[in-house]
Structure formats: structure tokens, C-alpha cells
């Protein structure tokens, strides 16, 4: 790091009276910001308040219409992005600019490769990048390809890239928008280490819990103006929210401890689905599903809530047989199905509504009728030949019941709206009495009318005796349908509570790992 030493007492950044207009939109009208060296400074405000514009002006991406910018006491008003980088101001954007087929090292040195003769000195590059990573507390293998990294790891590569280029003032634009809760914690660890090493960090965010957790100082921007600036210590989320929107806001209450309820459910009828100590390996994490146990009774919908990417997909795939379990046991109506194939599990009464209907749920170029029998083609076969008449007759009946439009069984599924495509998938899964239905994101991308119909069909299946595992990113859907709610976080089930004890307020913190 070869940056100019800060003049003693001078702030790292001082922006005064900044204004910026885009066409008819006055994005920033009179904003000021003062950031001291060695602090994490949160720039908070509602969407469109002008936070990102201010930071892009600081990073030299746009010139301001009015106002002055000083960095370490030096007037740099109107500088270019290249000069900002040279002067140690680096910005990590929401969308990463990495080449997936290159390694971490190659991405970090891209555009400034150390050479020996005409060749890139890859050994030296790797050494330097690895040293920089270690110095800044990044845990990464610099020889790994970027395409193999999780979003959080990619973000750390972006940060490393900025640091290697000499940044002492690091601007992060909504860095947690794409991260899962454990990745957020890892980011905080990295940022704290940078700050303790003398770095200056400006964090753009609109999430209050993040602000209070990580920042030292807060500047609030509202409608293009900086309206308040104060140290984080001693403020409350309510007062920050008040400053952000200019009036009092009701914040969700604290979470109750909900895990007590999990133990009280042994003496019940035989479960239709039992998952015991299930472990499933993931692509990025050693354990995508980490020692998960639960059971679903007949006539019960168990809602599985959680932020996406916490192992739900791996859990579903393991239950239906698309992915092998590393250890543990899965039982359908008492039969151990852990090592059985998809069709063998289906034959034992397990039905599945896959989360990605375009990829997994439908053969888009097959007709509605063919899609309705996909997976059950065996029962429509007589001596190897498909019984077309029966397929069509059953398709007409299913189209009628499920209200699939247009009602022509010979149409390719591709031509249907998302809601009608999903009705095909659901009609197929419910065509037969099943012990268990695994319903993943059953109403994703579906219009309101179809959602009602799909919910009604799921309830009807439950009332007819099916046990349903409902996985949804929509908490409202989980709460609308479930009899019990489980929360998945970091590959584990962190809580299972009866519906009566579940609410958005109580589940929210569990989903983000706050009280896990």
C-alpha cells in the first residue's frame, strides 16, 4: 500500500455542498459528507435518496455540478475515475466485474500484470496476490477459478482487487444485497480488519440492522440532501429510521425464542415423511444440508422458510432422489428410500413440484398432454406403446380440473403463461393420491389468480391426507398455508414452530441467523 500519508487531522474524505442533476432529476442537491481515516462510515437513506450518486462522484465516475471534494486534505474536485484509483479511492459495485473462467490471481492482476520478458510472471503474481489476501485477512485460494466461487467469495475478490490497486478508501455499494447471512458475517470480519489496519470504509446501505452492527459513524441522506451525521454508538434503529424518512416508523419487535417447540412432537401418528440426520454435500460448501431432521404427519403442511441459498434446494433434491445423501436417512410412509431412484420413490407415494419449472418441471417442447404424464409414462404404456387415447382423455380431464388455459392438450407447454405452466406441474403432482408432496416455490412467477387456485389445491391435497413439505421464499405463502413452520439457515433447521407461534416478526431474525 503506497498511499500518501494523511495530513494529521484532515478527514479522509470531505465533500461539501455537492449537487448533481441528471436531466430533469436533481439526484443530489446539497450534500455534505465527512469521513475520518480509519472508520467505517455508513451512508444510509431510502432507495433513490442520492447515496450512490454521491459515491460515484467521489470515485470520479461523474463530475459534480457544484461543490468541492477533498481527499486527505487535497482538493480533487472533478477528478477522473483513473485518478481516483491512483489516489487510492476504490469502489466495489453491486455488480461484480470478474472473468469467471480466470483464477482469482488472474482477475486481480488483470490489466496490470507483472511481466518477465513478454510472458506474465504468474509465479510472482500468485505470490503477491496471496500475500495481499493474507495481509487483509481474506481466506482464499488464489489459484481457484472465479466461476467456482460463491457470490460472497466473488465479492471478496472484488475487494481484494481494489486493495491491491492501492485503495485506502473503500466504497461498497449495497454489499449485502446479494449475500447470505454467513457471507455477510464474513464480510463484516474483513471490513473490521481493514479498518483496524487504518483503512477507511464507506458503506452504502438502507438496512438499519447492518448500520448499527458494523458502522462507527452514520450520515443520513434524504431526497438528495445530507440531513444528519452522528456516531453510531448511542443511536437506536428507530432514530436512524426517523432521520431517513423524516417521521416515526414502527419497527418489528424483537424475536421470541421459538426453538422450545421443536421437542414436543413425538407422540403422533406415523409420519409420512421422515428425515433423520440428513447430510448432503454441496458444490460450494462441504455440507449444503447439515444434519437435518424433521417429520411430516399425514394431513399436515410443513412450511420451510429461509433465505434462498441456505440449503433448501439440496434438501429438496435429496428428498426426491435427484441428489445423493452423504449420510442420514429418508423415509416415505415408513419405507427407507434413501438409496432409491426418483421413480422408485415416486412409486412409493412421493410427488414433487420442482422449484425451477422451466428446467426441471416441464419439457417445454412437449404438449400439455405429454407433460401431464411425464414421469408416469409407464402407467400409460401397453406393451411398450403409449396409449394415446387414454393420455388425451386424462389430459382433457386434468385441464378441466386444473383450469389450464388454453384448454388444448396438444399445445406445446412453451406457449403457455407461467401460471398455466405451473398448473400443469401441479396437476401432474396431484394426479394421484400421494403420501408426501414436496412443493418447492409452487407459486413463483405466477399471477394472483393462479396463486389462489394453487393454494386451494395444496390445501385440498392436505385435507385428503397428503403430508406436504412446502418450500417457499415467500414468508407470506408459508404463513398462509403451513400447519407448522421450519426455518432453514446455513444448511440446518434452526427452528420448527407451530403456525400459531409463527409470524413474520418472529421468523425474520431466525431466517437471517440472528438468533441461531
Amino acid at each position: 500500500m503506497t498511499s500518501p500519508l494523511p495530513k494529521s487531522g484532515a478527514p479522509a474524505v470531505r465533500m461539501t455542498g455537492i449537487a448533481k442533476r441528471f436531466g430533469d432529476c436533481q439526484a443530489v442537491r446539497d450534500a455534505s459528507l465527512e469521513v475520518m481515516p480509519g472508520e467505517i462510515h455508513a451512508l444510509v437513506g431510502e432507495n433513490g435518496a442520492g447515496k450512490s450518486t454521491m459515491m460515484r462522484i467521489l470515485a470520479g465516475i461523474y463530475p459534480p455540478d457544484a461543490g468541492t471534494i477533498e481527499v486527505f486534505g487535497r482538493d480533487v474536485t472533478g477528478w477522473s475515475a483513473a485518478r481516483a484509483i491512483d489516489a487510492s479511492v476504490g469502489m466495489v459495485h453491486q455488480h461484480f466485474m470478474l472473468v469467471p473462467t480466470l483464477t482469482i490471481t488472474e482477475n486481480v492482476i488483470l490489466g496490470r500484470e507483472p511481466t518477465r520478458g513478454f510472458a506474465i510472471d504468474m509465479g510472482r503474481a500468485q505470490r503477491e496476490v496471496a500475500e495481499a489476501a493474507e495481509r487483509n485477512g481474506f481466506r482464499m485460494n488464489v489459484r481457484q477459478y472465479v466461476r467456482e466461487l460463491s457470490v460472497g467469495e466473488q465479492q471478496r475478490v472484488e475487494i481484494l482487487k481494489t486493495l491491491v490497486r492501492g485503495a485506502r478508501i473503500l466504497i461498497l455499494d449495497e454489499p449485502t444485497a446479494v449475500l447470505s447471512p454467513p457471507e455477510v458475517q464474513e464480510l463484516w470480519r474483513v471490513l473490521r480488519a481493514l479498518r483496524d489496519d487504518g483503512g477507511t470504509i464507506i458503506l452504502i446501505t438502507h438496512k438499519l440492522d447492518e448500520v448499527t452492527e458494523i458502522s462507527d459513524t452514520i450520515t443520513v441522506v434524504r431526497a438528495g440532501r445530507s440531513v444528519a451525521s452522528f456516531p453510531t454508538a448511542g443511536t437506536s434503529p428507530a432514530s436512524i429510521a426517523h432521520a431517513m424518512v423524516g417521521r416515526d416508523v414502527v419497527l418489528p419487535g424483537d424475536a421470541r425464542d421459538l426453538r422450545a417447540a421443536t421437542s414436543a412432537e413425538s407422540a403422533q401418528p406415523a409420519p409420512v415423511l421422515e428425515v433423520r440426520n440428513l447430510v448432503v454435500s454441496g458444490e460450494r460448501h462441504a455440507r449444503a444440508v447439515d444434519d437435518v431432521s424433521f417429520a411430516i404427519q399425514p394431513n399436515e403442511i410443513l412450511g420451510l422458510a429461509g433465505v434462498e441459498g441456505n440449503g433448501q434446494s439440496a434438501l429438496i433434491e435429496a428428498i426426491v432422489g435427484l441428489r445423493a445423501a452423504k449420510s442420514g436417512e429418508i423415509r416415505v410412509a415408513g419405507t427407507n428410500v434413501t438409496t432409491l431412484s426418483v421413480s422408485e420413490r415416486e412409486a412409493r407415494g412421493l410427488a414433487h413440484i420442482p422449484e425451477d419449472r422451466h428446467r426441471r418441471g416441464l419439457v417445454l417442447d412437449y404438449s400439455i398432454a405429454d407433460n401431464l404424464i411425464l414421469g408416469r409414462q409407464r402407467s400409460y404404456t401397453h406393451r411398450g406403446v403409449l396409449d394415446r387415447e387414454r393420455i388425451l382423455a386424462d389430459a382433457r380431464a386434468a385441464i378441466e380440473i386444473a383450469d389450464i388455459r388454453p384448454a388444448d392438450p396438444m399445445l406445446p407447454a412453451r406457449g403457455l403463461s407461467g401460471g398455466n405452466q405451473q398448473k400443469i406441474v401441479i396437476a401432474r403432482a396431484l394426479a394421484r393420491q400421494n403420501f408426501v408432496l414436496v412443493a418447492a416455490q409452487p407459486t413463483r412467477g405466477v399471477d394472483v389468480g393462479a396463486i389462489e387456485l394453487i393454494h386451494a389445491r395444496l390445501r385440498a391435497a392436505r385435507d385428503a391426507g397428503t403430508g406436504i413439505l412446502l418450500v417457499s421464499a415467500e414468508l407470506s405463502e408459508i404463513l398462509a398455508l403451513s400447519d407448522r413452520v421450519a426455518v432453514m439457515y446455513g444448511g440446518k433447521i434452526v427452528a420448527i414452530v407451530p403456525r400459531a407461534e409463527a409470524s413474520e416478526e418472529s421468523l425474520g431474525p431466525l431466517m437471517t441467523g440472528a438468533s441461531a
Partner: protein
Amino acid sequence: MSDAAQTLIPTRTMRDRIFEAVLPPLVALLVSIVAGDLLILAVGQSPGAVYRLMLEGTWGNAYGFGQVLYKATTLTCTGLAVAVGLRAGLFNIGAEGQLAAGGLGAALVGLALPAGAPALVAAPLCMLAALCAGGAVGFVPGVLRAKWGAHEVITTIMLNFIVLAFLSWTMSTQLRVPETLHTSAIHAGALQRLATWLPSFHGSAANASLMIVLIAAILVDQYLFRTRGGFELRAVGLQPDAAENAGISVGRAWIRALTISGALAGLGGINFVLGYEHYYEEGFATGAGFLGIAVALVGRSNPLGVVLAALFFATLSQGGLAINALVPKQMVDALQGVVILAMAASVPEVRRLLASSRKGVR
């Protein structure tokens, strides 16, 4: 999307589907005719005269037509082979080796059987040998893909070299009649020439294989579109993830598809060995395996389309001989290339045009 818009879909898709099936070959044909005109003009001949001579030499007389049918028979087999692979989402480039293996298989059984074995027993046995030999060659890349993920394009190409080299070695060390490239004549299993029933075909190589291959095309059509196996195979070809989700074993479907594919290409071997010369000869159908790719593409992987495309390419090939006096034979090879290129280019092109016109209507 409103309900009114949705009810428009049925009529539109039917029309679109017919368009999408018929238009690309027509566009390709048109382009190749224009290109052919230019080529003929370039060598200083009149396109009209050349095309007339070409038609007279192929569909214009019984002998020429018989030769077209003979060539189309082999091409139908290799075209069906590639088409079945494509339906399962696999690109079988190995029809060349599978065809040769099928030919030798048929010949070996024909040589092993005693002379005077009844034709009704011998011929089916020889055909079965051709199917098995080709199928075995197709099975290998199927397993390599299903078990180890080795891409079938690479493995089938490499297998062509291995199979052809192996056949060549077997011939030179064991089987061939000295001073020739072929085996001795088979003792049993030979098929009748068409001239036996229709004397005007006299001299042409067309033979009863034609009927057997047509039956095979019908069976492939039935298999693909009427049976459970075909249903699963096409689902795997269109969307392997959805097929897997439906409990279909994708790997097994791949193995099955490439085995059937190889068997169909192998069946093509009977046309020469049982129907025409009654012996196996090295290089008896060189190029027919690769041309099968073009036949399958022009035939849109549809068995009926494959038969028509095979007739088309057979006509080009035989017509090339007929017009040899006026233009160099290489011109026909060039024309073949143009047809394939036009076909490959026209399919996505037509799709795009249809898509944009549909948007315009809505």
C-alpha cells in the same frame, strides 16, 4: 397475457409448426439452386441444360433411378442413425465406422452359413449381424458418455478411426481374397435385386434392402413417437433435467439411443453386402456415414424427412455422374456442401423471422 391472446395460440402454433418444418428445407433448396446456377455458369455451361441432363440421368430412366434408390437406401440408414442420436440430444459422428462394421458383420455371417441355407433364415441372420455389429460400435460411446461424461462427438469420431483400422487389419490378415480388397462371396443370405421383379431396373444395384430399410424408417418413426422408450428418449434430448426429475435415467437413455443409432447405421451395410456385390469390400460406402449427418439435418431428424432427404442427396450424387460430360463432378460435391450450409443457416434464421413476425402481430 390476456385470455384473448391465449386463445389465438392454437391456430398460430399449428401454422408455425408447419412453416418451421417445411420452410428451412425449401429455403435451403432455393439457395442451393441459385448457388448451383452460379457454379454452372462459372464453368461456362447453361444451367437449364445441366439440370435437364441431371434429371434424365437419375429420375428419367429406370437404371438411373435404380442407382438413386440404391444410394438412398444406405443414406437412409445413416440418416436415421444420426436422427435418433439427435432426438436424444446426441451428435453421432460415428455412422461411418458403424456402417462398415455392419457390413462386415453381415458378410461374416453370410460366409459362415452353409451354401444353400434357406434365404428366409439366412438373410434375417445376416441382417441381425449387421444390426448387432453397428449397435456394438454405437454402444461404446454411449457408455463412455453416460458413465464418464466423455463427449460423444469426440468419442464417435475417434471410434471411426479405430473401427476402420481394425476392419482393415482383419481384412488384410484374415479375410480378403488375394490381390483384392474384398472377401470371397457370401454363401447365404443374399437379397434379390429389384430387376428380378422389375426387369427395367436391369443393371442397377437397387435391391430388396430398400424395402427392409423403409420398414426400418417406419419402425423408427413409431418408436420415437408412439412408444414409451421414444417418449423418454425425446424428453432426454429436449430437456435432460426435466427427464431426470421425472425419474427417467438420462444415462441409460443415452446408451440406448447411441446403440439404436449404431444399429441403424450398421443395417446400411446389408445394402452393399447382401443386396449388391454379395461380399464385404473395404471402403464400400466411404462418405455415406458422414453424409448421413446432412441427411438427418435436412430431414429435420424426422424419419419421413430422412427418407426424402436421402433421396435428394442420392439424386445429387447419381446426377453428378450423369452431368460429368458437361461440368466437373466436384461441382456436385460443392453443391452438396452448399445445401448443408444453407440448411444449417436457414433453420435458426427461419425461427428468428417467425418470432419477430409473431411479435409484430401481437
